[in-house]
């Protein structure tokens, strides 16, 4: 029973990691951009949720109504202002520029909110649990987060493969030049992809802020979790990324159960094992 609980907790946390990863995977898929500031944007969303709840006096989950469009807007503006100029064959410009953004966001948050760690209060829902069978309990909030993660992945999957926007994303990813010849405005498509990515980031950031303490320096480790989930799952497959997030969550939960110091290390080791044994990930869809 003890282990069932541990694995169940890991699976539920894994949903959050899948959300970290989905935004990262989306923009890499569409425009081959790896966003080093991704984790810091997640933390930025958490702070936006904090400010929203305090000024409007609403609960953290309600604050999603404000934070999600706001982050999407930031994404839509960031793309043409900064990131579009970095796209191309050269690897360094996007890495360096997003690294710079990461340093700017981190230190900006540090100077505005100090290094104190914070947590958003969601009220009774935080402690509510459901009994599955005797000895196996599931928190309502982690369960809600997991359901939201499934919904986010399903929505992205739907947008990607069933809508005109998704067709534009896939066409631009396959060949930006031909997509442009077919009448697509690549800059607009890229900006929409970044907006979608940051909308997912906003949801992930709010759940991060409700579930655990956060502070301005946490971004890089969130980026790394998301990245590990993408690679474990296999490039180009959204449900693969979801599975990667779950595997990472379970590995961390098992590690933490053995020794609290091993939580993060166990996740990294699971990632390295997958990399050594199946470098293309567990459910690869595209070849790199």
């Amino acid at each position, binding site marked *: 029973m003890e282990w069932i609980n541990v694995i169940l907790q890991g699976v539920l946390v894994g949903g959050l990691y899948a959300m970290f990863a989905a935004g990262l995977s989306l923009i890499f898929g569409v425009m081959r951009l790896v966003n080093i500031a991704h984790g810091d944007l997640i933390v930025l969303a958490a702070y936006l949720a904090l400010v929203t709840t305090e000024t409007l006096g609403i609960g953290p989950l309600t604050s999603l109504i404000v934070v999600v469009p706001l982050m999407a807007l930031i994404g839509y503006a960031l793309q043409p202002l900064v990131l579009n100029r970095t796209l191309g064959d050269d690897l360094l410009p996007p890495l360096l520029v997003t690294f*710079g953004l990461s340093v700017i966001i981190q230190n900006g948050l540090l*100077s505005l909110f100090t290094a104190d760690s914070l947590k958003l209060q969601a009220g009774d829902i935080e402690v509510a649990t459901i009994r599955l069978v005797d000895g196996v309990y599931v928190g309502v909030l982690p369960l809600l987060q997991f359901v939201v993660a499934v919904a986010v992945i399903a929505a992205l999957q739907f947008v990607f493969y069933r809508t005109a926007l998704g067709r534009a994303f896939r066409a631009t990813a396959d060949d930006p030049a031909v997509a442009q010849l077919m009448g697509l405005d690549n800059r607009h498509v890229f900006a929409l992809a970044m907006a979608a990515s940051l909308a997912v980031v906003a949801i992930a950031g709010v759940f991060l802020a409700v579930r655990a303490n956060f502070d301005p320096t946490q971004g890089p480790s969130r980026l790394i979790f998301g*990245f590990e989930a993408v690679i474990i799952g296999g490039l180009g497959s959204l449900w693969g990324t979801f599975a990667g997030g779950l595997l990472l969550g379970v590995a961390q939960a098992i590690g933490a159960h053995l020794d609290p110091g091993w939580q993060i290390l166990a996740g990294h080791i699971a*990632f390295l094992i997958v990399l050594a044994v199946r470098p293309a990930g567990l459910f690869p869809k595209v070849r790199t």
Partner: protein
Amino acid sequence: MSVRVVFASRSSRVGAALCAAGFVALVAAPMWGGRDDLQLLSEIYAYVALASLWNLLAGYAGLVSVGQEAYVGLGAYLLFAFAILGGISPLWAIPLAGAVAAGVAIPVAALVFRLRGHYFAIGTWIVAEVFRLLASQVAVLGGGSGTSLPAAMIIGIAPSRQARDFLEYWIALALVAAIVAFIVLLLRSRYGLALKAIRDNELAARCNGIDVTRTKVLVYIVTAFGTAMIGAQIFLQKLRISPDAAFSVNDWTAFVIFITVIGGIGRIEGPIIGTVVFFLLRQTLADLGTLYLMMLGLVAILVMLAAPKGIWGLIVERLGWQVFPLERRVVFDERSAAAE
């Protein structure tokens, strides 16, 4: 008609003379500088060395790593482990740390080279995180809170504090001089030609018979060697180590990348110019704290977008200078042609 390849130009002869004069002045720094000056200079040397090594890795071999702090921290921890557990003098421990780190880099390369491009970058970062977490599990070296170099070890380096300061300063200078000289010689060799070919066009380099993967792996291992020695030297001077300080991604990778890009990536002179700019900014603006770091990030972004070749790249474009004789020029020897 005979044909020769020459490296030197007028500007590189001037550069060599200036470098030699500057080097002599820096060797003599203990005569004209105070304790603070020596420490600042040592720190500058460490950053020149780290940036030069990263430049070799990213600027020439095209391996954009954001995990070089793995080797800075590994070198530093090895120095402390050799000194505390093995009783080895810290001076010998520096090259030893480099050699062991190069050995560690071989299996690491086997793993991270499975990732391409951007994914390679973040993969190296994860390796550095693994090293950091493992270091914090080593109880004899202080675990998560770190440890200090024992007093007996410190006295063993040199009996008086002044002699230690001088010795540590000269070690820092010798290391940076050796690393920069090694990179210059490497780039003048046939491996250097291969590296430049890879930098300019990987596919074309492959077509010309260059074993691209092998060359990249070799550069990765050599860079790990140098980076670990610098890490050992930095923390020998600090005398105290902790996982967060030794494996800091900001201190040993973000700043190093900013320095290289601001100075000019893919050129030997770039990291040196970049380090000078970095320290000028730091000495004047460090009081601003977080604002200073935000400005540094902003400057790096602006340079990358507006002048991706950096400061030295602009100088080369406008004036054609080169301090280090690296550019190959073909000279047709007229006299021997007339004799034929």
